[in-house]
């Protein structure tokens, strides 16, 4: 019993022991803009300098609404946002209505493996505030590269993937699943336990 005395604080500091639900949380440098979502996430916002995944069953279920407040905040601060291989045209009237400044929005057209390459270049350079990519079918090694690139460039990275990829493991720091339109579930969040209920996503 008294042979090994380990301080609880040390375990907590090493992140070997996680508290079920931290109460006093630091406010993140990258809030999502959705109060309900911020409350669920360990840092109170997006994991900074890391890859986040957004998994969705089909287009048109609120995948842009999740990010629009963040993109609006970044573009207002003069940061550059890169969209690598978006599946459709970002329709300017709606993006402007969401508060995104189109001047900071860069579209990169790529296909196949070039999507990952372009996203990695944008992330690694550290010259963008956020990089959104639609990599298609990728394995966890490619995602790990994106994760490392996001750390190197200290940039927010977002990868949009199909919802059936939720069963595969992923090195992303945060995984969000858009279950139904406007309902988001946190599948994984680094530094905390993922809650097992979905929350509604308020527009804006």
């Amino acid at each position: 019993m008294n042979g090994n005395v380990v301080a609880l604080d040390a375990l907590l500091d090493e992140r070997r022991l996680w508290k079920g639900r931290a109460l006093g949380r630091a406010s993140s440098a990258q809030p999502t803009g959705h109060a309900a979502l911020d409350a669920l996430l360990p840092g109170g916002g997006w994991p900074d300098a890391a890859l986040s995944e957004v998994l969705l069953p089909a287009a048109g279920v609120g995948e842009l609404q999740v990010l629009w407040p963040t993109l609006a905040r970044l573009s207002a601060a003069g940061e550059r946002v890169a969209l690598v291989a978006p599946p459709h045209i970002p329709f300017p009237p709606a993006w402007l209505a969401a508060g995104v400044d189109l001047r900071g929005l860069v579209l990169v057209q790529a296909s196949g493996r070039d999507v990952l390459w372009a996203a990695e270049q944008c992330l690694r350079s550290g010259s963008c505030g956020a990089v959104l990519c639609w990599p298609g079918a990728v394995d966890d090694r490619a995602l790990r590269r994106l994760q490392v690139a996001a750390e190197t460039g200290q940039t927010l990275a977002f990868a949009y993937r199909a919802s059936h990829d939720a069963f595969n493991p992923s090195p992303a720091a945060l995984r969000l699943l858009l279950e139904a339109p406007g309902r988001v579930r946190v599948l994984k969040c680094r530094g905390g336990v993922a809650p097992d209920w979905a929350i509604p996503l308020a527009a804006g």
Partner: protein
Amino acid sequence: MRWACILFPQLALDAVLRRRVEPERPLALLAGTPQRRVLQALNPAARALGLRRGQALAAAHALTRDFATADYDPADIERWQRFLAAWAYRFSSQVSLHYPRAVLLEVQSSLGLFGPWPGFEARLRQELTALGFRHRIVAAPHPAAARALVNVYDGLALDSQKALQACLGGLTVERSGLDRESASAFQRMGLRTLGQVLAMPRDSVARRFPATVLQHLDTLLGRRALALDCYTPPDRFDGRVELNFEVESHQALLFPLRRLTADLAAFLAGRDSGVQRFVLDLEHRNGAPTRVPVGLLSAEREAAMLFELARGRLEQLQVPAPVLAMRLLAKDLPAFVPQRRELFDDRPQQSLPWEQVRERLRARLGDDAVQVLQARADPRPEQAWRLGEEGTRPPQLAQAMRPGWLLREPVPLRGPAPRVLAGPERVESGWWDGGDVRRDYYCVETRGGQRAWVYRTVGEGGPLWLHGWFA
């Protein structure tokens, strides 16, 4: 100290060696008539094989065959001298090619910018070594004196007239730049050093020797000004590297490409300009050369970046035939505007500016792969957006009830009948430009819960057309 003279003792050899991947291999430059080729210049490895300058090629081949040869081309030497003048133009506004195989530059007025002479000289040496040219540098109060002293000294820097006279006095007569006849006449008179010549009475020298002798002595000491033609850099860059064998792989083209882009960068730095568009010509044995145009969005001049961009274009290329030579031609040299950086940047870890990332992406993915979105004031969805280059200022028109995603081409909406959430909204426009549109738009929710933007042309039945997603 006002003038520096940089002498290139083996300019012809360096010009050939620097485009070889392995410069330590034995190499000889050949001159003379086709019937009797003679070795004109040799690198140390070739000299170690026992080859001597002036030897006939046949005699050299009798000794050994383990050496490469290249032609000694006087036009080539002149071209490289001009290139070096373009390089030196970066450090001084007064650069002269008055003497063969040497570059004179006025340094006094550049010291304020480049720091005291020892540091300045070290920088010159470092850049010349990187470019692959052997050199000797002497700084002296007068250009002619610098040229004469660089025959003997390297790294000498003289400030005062007194030190200059002492140094010049130690020069032997035949190395002082006097014409051969007068030099041998002085020697036969028993005058071996320039000091002894200068000590002679002026009038007797004037009587016994041609007027050029006194003129030369006066120029050396700065009593008489030397009229120099100042170099002005050309408005275009044209560099060419001949490969010594037929090259079919990209890998083997990278070394000459690196040299060419480094030369271009040195040239651009001298002119304080950048390059926005340049062309790589890959020359083949037969037929027209393959052109590889490299275009940039803004003027750049950093060697590593130019190399990487050109490499990106080159790697995409299917070369139809083996390559014999590579030529880099840059005509469009706009002024270089350095990027403004802030001292306390928000992102101190930023390793690569966006401009470089953008060029890298364009080099691999194509010229129009990186674009920004622009909004246009047009009610027709197809006309309400446009892709453009960065830097333009589009109008910012926000509209509610528009989808975040717009499909490039409308597609028929499949599946069971959706639930209408809003609409119809009539969009009717475009009768003036042929793109006539009369549509009723609805916001609908499909059975799967997706929210879509669909339309039906007014007066027509048929399926609903899907035009966007409220994402």
